[in-house]
């Protein structure tokens, strides 16, 4: 047994990593729904989920249970195979795309194995990511087609057209970054951002691709982010599932768990896109401060401990008993984490990278939700003309300008 | 020496004028067109004069003066360049062409003033000048042939100038086709020369030819054949028997054209060529004899026809033919300088005659029939005087130009050792006829009582632009011959002297031989000639002024001869019957109906029908069913692969496949 483990340690390790990542991602997805509902609610000056658990914190669990135990009707005259294939495809691809994302710079040392954060580190990582995203269209399109019903079909048509056309802009907008970093591997991209020559020769945040010379990728970032939103069918590009027009678009005919799959797929791809944004343009796990400012390494704990204390205080004065019991515990855990970081410098150093990356991802997720809460939906022709006539040319221009700037800078 | 180095300017100027007028003249007023046309020719005349002036200062070893401008054709060891050459002969031709040409241009501005296509006319005329100058300046047969064909082209264009008139366009075609026959011979001649001498440039060719032995009489050597072929071409161009038929019809063109092309310059090109290649001819006595015979025959023959013609221009046309005959007679008896001399004088008085007749026609409002004229001498005095001068000149009255030239020709003919007497006799007879029909023309036109309706036609003298050239030419045709005059009182003949370097190099011994007996014969022969001329005058006077009814009686009394002459010996009809009809029959029945329709079309249609048959068979494969097409594609792919991998597919190789 042991020798088997010894032989195939790497396989085992990656299996374990996959399991952990899966768990984390799914949980995050669940709480992302809670987060979204809360934020949108507050934007619309409502309370949002508030009944299930303190601050509705258990709402995701309830939803999950509902998805699991709800009846699952299959509409008449659907193409069974494709009908079942579609959501699986969507979910599988979405989860796969997470796998190539590295979450931290330096490995954990465990029994002589270097365990990197992140499942695989392909040297064509970004290309692989795009490949997977490209296939992502099928989930939606097939779902729309297989449902054998008109609204889903329209949704499917729209989404396939939309995704194909925005994929171009998506890919093009990244080329600028690739030119500046000269590699497909996400890890290399981040590292070059650490080393690159920053704006005004400044360090830290100014070395991220968004600001760094020879040509700051602000255009590229805007194109990328917009196109990514379109790829993930989010507001304001959520025409495939436009409630007001198509009931629920391509997943109208899907119920319970198959619907959940689409749901999870969507949120997972949101996470993927956010992490891509932060990696490609915002220096991934790099800290915004110059390396010399070591005191900023205490920032995690400085944030966590007060937050934990606030949660405890809030729990103590919470109206329901349940809340009085749970919240202080959660708060204590958070504060304790902060304390640990302070006490053990090695741990603190280790978590710097993940901390920054996750916080950036969190910011982008918040932007997602924010837009969902505020922006109206495009009309279909507007969507198309925007994608083809504005986004694509701008990203192409970005490529050209960047290339010439690079040539000019190292002539 | 500027102009001699830039000889090309002389022909280039008329070409420029022609181009300008032809391209832009359509909208322009006549004044500008005149300026361009007359200006360009005038300038080239001046250039020619300057060239001659410089030529006279040339050292004799530089003569002939050859300028090579660029290589035109180069194939193997054959080179034909755009080379221009000047020697005494060229000088004479150059002066005649440019001078007379210029005068006639001036004349035309008056004559054509009220015609349509004014710019077209002058464009053609200048074009003709260009080609004619190329012809006389050319330093090799190829370039000469270019000019040769070019003048043919322009003459075709100008004869058919009133192309709306069918007769005019027919005449143009006729001229062109008849000339083709001659040109064919000319080309064969050139080929033969190139084959035997390896060059067509005059200087080296003649240099090579001179030392060679001459062909013996009556034996067809290379020289003889080449010369006969060249002479065929000359016959075509210069309207000799049997190819003269186009010239009378050519009178359909405007009168200045008849004057310039069909009297003064182009038709003399044949004579020029024979004179130019005299070295070859002197090596071919047979050919020379033929030339003499043909020339003499033509002279007499044409003169007889001229007797009865009533169309004023036709009379002149036949007279031209007969005068050309004289020139060839001269060449035939190796009196080239005499021939060229007559060429020059003839250019003067014949051009004058035509222009004057043109003036008459102008005055009569387009009437050409002499029987409808008469008594014009008072009304158009200047025309009358000038025309009278020309007539006296051509009839050979001393001391006018024609007297000297014709006289020297007759003298040389008389002296020539082969059938000289007969040639002389015919020449004399022709002279008689000539003076007769010329005076007949004068009397019919200018004397007697008017035979036209005075009220319809109001006769009027022509404008200055027409009269001035007439006067100038009249003066020329009076004094034109005097440069040869001294021969009478034993002094050397200047003209012959001038041309001697050209013709002496042929080693034409009879030139010196003539000198001896010349003086003995000179006077008596001259007297005989004058008497003949007077006789002709007397007959004409008697018939047409004293007894106006007489000619009809004569015509009645010898009707056969009269009608024969009136219909020009039925030559055209004979040609039509002997050549044209068979050709037509051949091409219609054999070439068209059999070869083309049955043979070629049959083949083509047969192929087409075969294809149709095949198509009917194969059509069924095109079922329109895409899947079947797919199968066909696959079959094709298999075939291709099989071919490519054939070496691998050989049974020997199969063993290796595992």
């Amino acid at each position: 047994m042991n020798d088997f483990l010894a032989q195939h340690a790497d396989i085992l390790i990656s299996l374990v990593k996959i399991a952990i990542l899966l768990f984390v991602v799914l949980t995050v997805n669940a709480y992302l729904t809670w987060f979204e509902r809360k934020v949108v609610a507050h934007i619309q000056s409502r309370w949002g989920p508030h009944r299930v658990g303190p601050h509705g914190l258990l709402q995701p669990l309830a939803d999950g249970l509902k998805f699991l135990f709800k009846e699952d009707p299959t509409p008449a005259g659907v193409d069974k195979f494709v009908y079942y294939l579609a959501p699986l495809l969507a979910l599988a691809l979405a989860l796969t795309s997470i796998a190539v994302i590295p979450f931290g710079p330096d490995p954990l040392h465990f029994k002589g194995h270097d365990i990197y954060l992140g499942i695989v580190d392909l040297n064509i990582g970004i290309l692989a990511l795009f490949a997977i995203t490209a296939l992502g269209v099928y989930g939606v399109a097939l779902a729309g087609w297989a449902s054998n019903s008109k609204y889903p079909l329209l949704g499917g048509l729209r989404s396939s057209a939309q995704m194909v056309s925005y994929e171009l802009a998506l890919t093009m907008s990244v080329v600028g970054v690739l030119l500046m970093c000269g590699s497909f591997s996400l890890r290399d991209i981040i590292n070059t951002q650490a080393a690159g020559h920053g704006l005004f020769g400044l360090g830290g945040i100014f070395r991220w691709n968004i600001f760094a010379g020879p040509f700051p990728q602000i255009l590229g970032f805007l194109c990328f982010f917009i196109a990514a939103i379109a790829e993930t069918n989010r507001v304001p590009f959520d025409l495939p599932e436009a409630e007001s027009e198509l009931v629920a678009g391509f997943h109208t005919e899907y119920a319970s768990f198959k619907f959940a799959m689409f749901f999870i797929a969507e949120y997972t791809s949101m996470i993927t896109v956010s992490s891509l944004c932060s990696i490609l343009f915002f220096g991934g796990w790099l800290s915004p401060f110059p390396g010399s400012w070591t005191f900023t390494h205490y920032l995690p704990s400085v944030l966590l401990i007060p937050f934990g204390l606030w949660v405890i205080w809030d729990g103590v004065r919470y109206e329901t008993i349940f809340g009085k019991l749970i919240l202080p515990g959660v708060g204590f855990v958070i504060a304790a984490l902060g304390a640990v970081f302070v006490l053990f410098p090695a741990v603190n150093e280790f978590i710097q990278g993940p901390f920054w990356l996750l916080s950036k991802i969190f910011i982008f997720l918040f932007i997602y939700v924010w837009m969902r809460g505020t922006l109206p939906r495009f009309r279909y022709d507007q969507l198309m003309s925007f994608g083809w006539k504005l986004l694509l040319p701008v990203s192409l221009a970005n490529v050209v300008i960047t290339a010439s700037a690079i040539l000019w800078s190292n002539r | 020496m500027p102009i001699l180095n830039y000889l090309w300017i002389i022909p280039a100027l008329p070409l420029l004028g022609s181009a300008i007028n032809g391209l832009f003249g359509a909208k322009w007023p006549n004044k500008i067109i005149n300026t361009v046309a007359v200006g360009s020719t005038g300038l080239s005349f001046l250039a020619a004069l300057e060239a001659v002036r410089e030529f006279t200062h040339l050292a004799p070893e530089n003569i002939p003066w050859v300028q090579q401008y660029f290589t035109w054709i180069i194939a193997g060891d054959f080179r034909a360049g755009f080379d221009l050459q000047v020697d005494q002969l060229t000088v004479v031709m150059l002066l005649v062409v440019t001078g007379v040409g210029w005068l006639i241009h001036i004349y035309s501005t008056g004559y054509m003033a009220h015609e349509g296509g004014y710019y077209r006319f002058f464009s053609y005329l200048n074009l003709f000048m260009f080609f004619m100058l190329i012809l006389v300046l050319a330093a090799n047969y190829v370039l000469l042939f270019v000019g040769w064909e070019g003048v043919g082209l322009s003459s075709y264009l100008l004869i058919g100038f009133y192309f709306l008139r069918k007769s005019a366009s027919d005449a143009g075609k006729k001229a062109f086709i008849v000339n083709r026959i001659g040109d064919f011979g000319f080309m064969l001649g050139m080929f033969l020369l190139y084959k035997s001498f390896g060059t067509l440039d005059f200087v080296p060719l003649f240099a090579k030819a001179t030392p060679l032995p001459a062909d013996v009489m009556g034996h067809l050597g290379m020289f003889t054949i080449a010369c006969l072929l060249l002479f065929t071409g000359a016959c075509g161009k210069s309207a000799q028997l049997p190819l003269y038929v186009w010239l009378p019809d050519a009178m359909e063109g405007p009168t200045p054209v008849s004057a310039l092309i069909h009297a003064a310059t182009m038709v003399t090109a044949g004579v020029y060529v024979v004179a130019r290649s005299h070295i070859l001819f002197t090596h071919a006595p047979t050919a020379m004899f033929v030339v003499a015979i043909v020339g003499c025959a033509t002279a007499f023959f044409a003169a007889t026809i001229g007797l009865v013609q009533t169309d004023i221009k036709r009379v002149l046309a036949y007279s031209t033919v007969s005068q050309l005959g004289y020139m060839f007679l001269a060449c035939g008896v190796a009196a080239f300088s005499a021939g060229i001399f007559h060429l020059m004088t003839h250019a003067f008085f014949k051009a004058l005659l035509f222009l004057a007749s043109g003036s008459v026609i102008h005055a009569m409002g387009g009437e050409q029939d002499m029987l409808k004229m008469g008594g014009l001498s008072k009304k158009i005095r200047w025309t009358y005087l000038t025309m009278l001068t020309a007539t006296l000149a051509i009839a050979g009255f001393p001391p006018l130009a024609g007297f000297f030239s014709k006289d020297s020709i007759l003298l040389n003919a008389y002296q020539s050792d082969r059938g000289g007497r007969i040639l002389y006799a015919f020449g004399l007879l022709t002279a008689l006829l000539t003076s007769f029909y010329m005076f007949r023309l004068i009397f019919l036109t200018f004397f007697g009582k008017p035979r036209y309706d005075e009220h319809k036609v109001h006769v009027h003298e022509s404008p200055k632009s027409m009269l001035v050239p007439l006067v100038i030419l009249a003066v020329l045709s009076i004094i034109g011959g005097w440069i040869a005059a001294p021969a009478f009182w034993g002094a050397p003949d200047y003209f012959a002297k001038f041309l001697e370097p050209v013709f002496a190099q042929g080693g034409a011994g009879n030139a010196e031989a003539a000198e001896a007996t010349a003086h003995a014969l000179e006077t008596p022969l001259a007297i005989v000639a004058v008497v003949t001329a007077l006789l002709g005058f007397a007959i004409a006077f008697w018939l047409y002024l004293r007894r106006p009814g007489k000619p009809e009686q004569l015509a009645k009394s010898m009707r056969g001869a009269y009608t024969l002459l009136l219909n020009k010996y039925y030559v055209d009809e004979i040609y039509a019957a002997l050549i044209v009809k068979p050709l037509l029959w051949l091409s219609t029945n054999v070439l068209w109906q059999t070869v083309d329709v049955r043979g070629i079309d049959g083949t083509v249609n047969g192929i087409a029908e075969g294809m149709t048959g095949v198509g009917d068979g194969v059509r069924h494969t095109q079922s329109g069913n895409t899947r079947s097409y797919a199968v066909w594609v696959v079959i094709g792919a298999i075939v291709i692969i099989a071919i490519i991998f054939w070496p691998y597919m050989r049974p020997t190789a199969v063993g290796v496949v595992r």
Partner: protein
Amino acid sequence: MNAPLVVFFVLAAMCIIGAISLILQRHPIHSALSLIVVMVALAGLYLLMGAEFVAAVQIIVYGGAIMVLFVFVIMLLNAGLEERTNVSRLAGIGGIPLAIALTGFLAAAVARSQDTVQAAAQTGAVAPTKALSRLLFQDFVYPFELTSFLILVAIMGALVLAQRENR
């Protein structure tokens, strides 16, 4: 039986099965899906051969664009089941043997060519994308530009064909 070989056979099996199902399926969508499987498997094979870039392009362009276009058109035209008409006798009779013959020829050619190709085969190296791009943009730059023209023409052609003539 080393690992690459195993992977190869798995992927090859995927390819062949996909191709066969492309033939057997009666509904265009299913055929399209089978073709997508084939393409993905091929991309895997390219990866196995170390042609990462080509593999990625294979999936992005073929999988993500071309096949999407197919699916899109199928959905747009709402294509139904394929009707098995048999108008073309030629295809009915000659089809199978011809295809087999063709495959046989090719396979035979390959088998014959193996020992020659085999020699070099051992040095099969991983293709660095940089080298590929260098080749593409230096040695093959004119063909590359020509393909861009081709694309342009194709776009215009597609527009002309697909637009409804508004009369």
